[in-house]
């Protein structure tokens, strides 16, 4: 009579035993309760371990992993600075300056005055967002007719979020809304990693300017006034006709679908 070792039983449980031995073992099992129990312990353990890790298969795949495997054409949507006004950027390096000083020459409308306080909550929101939120659903930006347009959560935020309601914890924050010189609505937005300016063009939010936010490494809360890159605020200055919208005008613009 064969003595069945633990390693034989394990091989059987793992499907590694050859057919001849398997037949012998099965015959032995019929007549041997203790052998049965040893085998059951091994197969149970195997099933238990497999079951313990099985739920991982149903977890959503983190964005940082799925992004690696996107088609190369869209694999790198956030270069350090995407400046649609390259010449301007060359003239003024990607420095970050106090927003207040950049807008100071303009007439100080109430909305601008609120900006400092709003920016503080914006930055806090960006920080919290960066730490707690999973990466946003892609794509946030897309190409349409050769133009960069907001999509996904950025488009949604531009369309539905009021600057006055932008709070902490949202992945996209909207800061300023204004009417540009062509008479279209424009809005600035930021995510944990970038800030941009988008204006209405044929029902879409066409991105006019985009800049990376120096997201890392955060050592604490950034000064609110440095929240938006200088180049972005300049882009606002360049386009704005009159003042930024106040909360009421913003609300009515949203109600009309940002059409004029």
């Amino acid at each position: 009579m064969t003595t069945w070792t633990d390693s034989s039983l394990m091989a059987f449980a793992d499907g590694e035993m050859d057919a001849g031995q398997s037949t012998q073992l099965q015959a032995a099992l019929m007549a041997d309760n203790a052998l049965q129990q040893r085998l059951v312990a091994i197969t149970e353990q195997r099933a238990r371990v497999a079951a313990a890790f099985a739920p991982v298969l149903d977890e959503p795949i983190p964005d940082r992993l799925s992004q690696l495997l996107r088609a190369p054409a869209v694999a790198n949507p956030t270069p350090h600075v995407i400046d649609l006004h390259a010449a301007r950027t060359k003239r003024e390096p990607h420095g970050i300056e106090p927003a207040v000083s950049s807008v100071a020459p303009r007439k100080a409308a109430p909305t601008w005055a609120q900006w400092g306080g709003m920016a503080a909550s914006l930055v806090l929101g960006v920080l919290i967002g960066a730490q707690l939120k999973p990466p946003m659903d892609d794509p946030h930006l897309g190409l349409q007719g050769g133009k960069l347009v907001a999509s996904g959560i950025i488009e949604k935020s531009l369309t539905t979020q009021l600057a006055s309601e932008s709070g902490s914890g949202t992945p996209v924050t909207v800061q300023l809304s204004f009417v540009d010189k062509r008479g279209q609505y424009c809005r600035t937005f930021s995510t944990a990693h970038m800030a941009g300016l988008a204006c209405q063009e044929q029902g879409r939010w066409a991105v006019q300017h985009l800049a990376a936010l120096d997201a890392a490494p955060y050592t604490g809360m950034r000064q609110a006034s440095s929240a938006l890159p200088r180049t972005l605020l300049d882009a606002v200055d360049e386009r704005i006709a009159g003042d930024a919208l106040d909360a009421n005008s913003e609300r009515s613009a949203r109600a009309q679908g940002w059409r004029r």
Partner: protein
Amino acid sequence: MREDIAALLPRLRRFGRTLAHNREDADDLVQIAVERALTHSHQWQPGTRLDSWMFRMMQNAWIDESRARVRRQQTFVEEEAGEHVGVSTNDAQMDALAVREAVSQLNDEQRAVVGLVLVEGLPYKEAADVLGIPVGTLTSRLARARDALQAILADPTGARP
């Protein structure tokens, strides 16, 4: 290749969790392996198993990643506690937690064989190739891992060498 790897991501993440326990560390391993796979795709031999190739790169990354281990030790408690805060736990979930906890107490070599054979269901030969060891070494590691696991699960609080 990208699509094939993308389809493997759930399993790669699962294997990562047997190695690293901590979710972030596990995903770090997957990320490293995916990046290596994409840059060294020419090194993969068609006709061989892509999953084994990826597992091997994850295992190598795990050996390299001493940094991750330090982090794992630091975040170990919060991670596991945090994952289950407010989650109604039934018996199956409790058991899964206990088993994952037990697996995390195995040594690196044992966790790798448990992950490859018991969780991923690789044949001995395939698992041995992933680890670059003879089948005999694999089976003896596997036997020791099973014994150790049984001991830990039988007495989760017991002091072990």
